């Protein structure tokens, strides 16, 4: 494997241009975690079922285990680390998950937050059906989903009231 070809890529991650040298088979989520040390994105199933690795790719939620890092060259990626406030404290959406007990073990949480962020960007005041549809591709084995739905509803209300 020593002679496996590597590719120079540049990906804008959370607003910062990041360079890396990767083999073509490295997935985007492995680039984020292993090369860029952004371990907030979780690796669950590695074949596009669980949603734990979701990131915003050019602003839209996608599965980072189903994108090769070389394909992200020249694109913009936002990870869970990019959802916090500039001072590093949690944003409204993250805080709402804490307030509403929208997580237990936390494994699915980054993917849930990304899915919710993608939804709220498009639909600031989503219906419960829209919320359930938006997180339909993310598996949670702890919460039963109800508190996650409530957390996203809370975040929408808080953002609607002007909280940032």
């Amino acid at each position, binding site marked *: *494997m020593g002679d*496996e*070809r590597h*590719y120079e890529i540049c990906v804008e991650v959370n607003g910062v241009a990041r360079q890396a040298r990767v*083999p*073509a*088979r490295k*997935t985007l989520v492995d680039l984020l975690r292993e090369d860029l040390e952004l371990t907030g994105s979780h690796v669950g*199933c*590695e*074949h*596009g079922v669980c*949603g734990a690795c*979701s990131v915003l*790719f050019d602003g*839209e*939620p*996608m*599965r980072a*285990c*189903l*994108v*090769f890092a*070389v*394909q992200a*060259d020249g694109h913009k990626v936002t990870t869970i680390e990019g959802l916090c406030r500039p001072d590093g404290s949690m944003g409204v959406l993250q805080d709402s998950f804490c307030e509403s007990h929208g997580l237990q073990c936390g494994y699915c949480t980054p993917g849930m937050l990304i*899915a919710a962020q*993608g*939804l709220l960007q498009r639909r600031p005041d989503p219906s419960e059906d829209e919320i359930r*549809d*938006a997180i*339909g*591709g993310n598996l949670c084995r702890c919460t039963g989903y109800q508190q996650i739905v409530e957390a996203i509803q809370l975040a929408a209300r808080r953002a609607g009231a002007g909280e940032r």
Partner: protein
Amino acid sequence: MKPAAFEYERARTLAGAVARLATHGSDAKLIAGGQSLVPMMAMRLLRPTLLVDIRELDELKLIRIDADADTVRVGACVRQSEALEHAALGEAVPLLAKALRWVGHVQTRNRGTVGGSVVHADPCAELPLVVRVLDAQLEACAASGSSLIAAREFFTGPLSTALAPEACLAAIHFPRWREGACGCAFEELSIRHGDFAIVAAAAQLALDAGGRCTRVVLGVGGAGPTPLALERAAAGLVGTRLEDAAIDATAEQASRDVEPGDDQHASADYRRDLVRVLSIRVLRAARSEARGQSQPGGA
């Protein structure tokens, strides 16, 4: 769950991509959205040595809807989420929009392409069923030239198509139904929404001014090695007023005309019964929609 090593090239033109396939040979693969291909590589069911990325080719991302044309041309790399949100496409090919709601999840539709799902040709998948039931034309592009393949010839088995290994699906030409009173419906049963269907059914029909059915197509997925158009069963509805009894008889015929298999999700008998039940549902729903259009104020 890591793919085997491969080399990667981003295509600049469609012609360049198919030329590369021709020179590299059959262990090269095209990648667009990758939402079916990458899992297969992760499980090492596929080990291409070269991936040619066509995702960013603008020439494959066009949706062309001409007012006078009999078909709508959807570029193979149009993302599923874009197709779903495209109002004019939803109006011209409403069955496609109805089926797209069942395809995967937000995250996979944001990256997965219409053409990718079609060439993956999973017999349970929604888009191959729509392509088959409408008998769309598949535009294949190879170094030797372009050709059109009818959907009835395209799906040859599970995950198998008539597309040559060195060819690229460039676009899908969906027929437009011009009748005044048309209706269509898509239904499926899956274990969780967004999963592949155990059985899916699609129907589209047209009524004349007197409420008689002039044209109808019915198809099912998950009940055979390919998506199936149930032409014999549907033919019995032409000329009827789509009474419940006629629809029930058609659905019975449909369930007799399929030969589903058993697997861990469902027995063959259960699938056969689903073909009957879902056929009734889609035919009734399509009928209601068509009557609503022909009789303003509701049927």
